[in-house]
């Protein structure tokens, strides 16, 4: 068959396919009647392309068909984004399962983060002057004023008084999720970045906690942080675990090429980070609307905080174990 015959014979079907593509590309969906037979049309385009190549038709025709095939491919193999349902399934079962599946990295990151936090806290508590070799004096002073038992509101921005929960909420989101994202992303530097951020944050938080306990602000401090800490600290450890996984894929790719190992590891660890981001969102909410309130007595706060820690730990260890997990 000569090229011109081939073209005139199939021109109409190509035009029709192109118009279907236009509709799909513009809106993302079209009415069912119009896209009926899309898959069959796409296969036919692929066949025409192969024919055109095998028969040595002109470049223009081949390029035209190639474009139709590419656009068809992109619509046919589009990754379906039923984000709502996926998110619910992920939170109910996928995320805790993932955390358990990656327990090695989670354990390593937790050990680094909580280990350095507790060690530094104890050291500062026992040797008070140590705090000044980690945190600069100005920051120590501002921390002290934040958790002064005389203050009516607690936490960052406490001096601004009431009515700014929104501002604090925004600040916590920006600050904390930013830190978690950094901890994750810097894992690409052979894991060193994650290692640094985990230890750095652990040491800083530990030093401040030890110092404030030592100077006698323990009730205001601990009752403030215990609630949102359950989500916030866990999330930082999880983001660190995701970063360590990235770094490990580069250091010890196993039987895969490094780039391939990295790609596979990233696909898993991005899900860990997404879960950690949800945790941090919750933490920011709790920090702004519960932790900073002074109407609840410290005992109530300790009780709620303990309940939240139990909730987080049991969620991560128990959720999604059922055979018929919710999808």
């Amino acid at each position, binding site marked *: 068959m*000569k090229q011109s015959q081939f073209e005139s014979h199939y021109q109409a079907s190509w035009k029709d396919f192109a118009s279907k593509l236009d509709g799909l590309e513009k809106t993302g969906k079209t009415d069912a009647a119009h896209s009926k037979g899309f898959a069959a049309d796409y296969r036919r385009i692929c066949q025409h392309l192969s024919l055109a190549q095998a028969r*040595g038709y002109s470049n223009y025709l081949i390029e035209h068909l190639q474009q139709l095939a*590419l656009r068809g491919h992109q619509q046919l193999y589009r*990754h379906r984004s039923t984000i709502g349902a996926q998110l619910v399934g992920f939170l109910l079962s996928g995320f805790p399962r993932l955390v358990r599946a990656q327990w090695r990295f989670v354990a390593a990151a937790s050990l680094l983060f909580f280990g350095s936090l507790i060690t530094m806290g104890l050291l500062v508590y026992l040797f008070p002057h140590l705090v000044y070799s980690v945190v600069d004096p100005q920051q120590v002073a501002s921390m002290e004023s934040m958790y002064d038992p005389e203050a009516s509101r607690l936490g960052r921005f406490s001096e601004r008084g009431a009515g700014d929960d929104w*501002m604090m909420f*925004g600040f916590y989101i920006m600050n904390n999720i930013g830190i978690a994202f950094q901890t994750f992303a810097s894992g690409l530097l052979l894991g060193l970045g994650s290692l640094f951020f985990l230890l750095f944050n652990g040491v800083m938080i530990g030093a401040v906690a030890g110092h404030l306990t030592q100077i006698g602000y323990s009730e205001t401090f601990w009752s403030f942080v215990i609630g949102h800490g359950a989500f916030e600290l866990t999330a930082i450890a999880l983001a660190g675990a995701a970063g360590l996984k990235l770094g490990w894929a580069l250091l010890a790719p196993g039987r895969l090429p490094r780039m391939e190992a990295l*790609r596979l590891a*990233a696909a898993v660890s991005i899900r860990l*980070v997404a879960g950690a981001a949800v945790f941090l969102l919750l933490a920011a909410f709790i920090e702004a609307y519960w932790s900073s309130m002074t109407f609840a007595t410290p005992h109530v706060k300790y009780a709620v905080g303990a309940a939240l820690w139990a909730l987080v730990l049991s969620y991560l260890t128990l959720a999604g174990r059922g055979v018929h997990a919710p999808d």
Partner: protein
Amino acid sequence: MPHIENSPEHATSQTSAQPSAGLLDTRYQVETPEGIDLTLRPAGLVPRALAYSIDLIIRGVVMGLMYLLLGMLGKLGMGLGTILLFLVTWWYMVLFEVLNQGRSPGKQWMGLRVVHDDGTPVGWPASLTRNLLRFVDILPMGYTFGILSCLNSPTFKRLGDIAAGTLVVYREEKPQPPILPEAEAIRAPFALSLKEQRAILGFAERANGLSKERRIELAGIIAQQLQVPAEQAEHRLNGIAHSLVGPR
């Protein structure tokens, strides 16, 4: 089977097959389940940097305007502003890439789009990965790691792209139907291979883009085989092209 790998014939057939595929060309082939090759054209450093700059400017302007507006709302406004800053910093690219067929406004302007390595539109996990890892690409300053990685990769991938398995490609433009130069259809004096057939058609289709002298020069190369004087070779080639395409 080492004896096959060591045999010289095998080695030569390997190397002789390579050059045709290894032209100085950035095109990237993806084989689909339907058994055809899709051709993607990865975009290089400069268009990507320009697209990024445009996005940066847009984000700057949006943030400036919102701060002016939200500033009037006091502390609520500051809170909203910080959340907005967070969204713009970490989610601007992700939202546009996933919801707008892989195109942030800057990329749209430059005619680029983000796709998975297999040519399918980018999804949430991949887009999130490549944009979170941007944090490493900008290290230690001014996108140094990203630029090094981009220049070092045959498909211009920055580190985030490598980890996410994504590509930034040129959006395909609709090809213009070419007009073959007028000539009497005539059969080739000898059987043409597929490659020769494509070359002759390509010559005729691109005639308008070549100067007269260049056309004569190119056609002159095979004047002898066509059994015509060099001046008529071009006309003869166009004639053969017409006969290959067939009657309109």
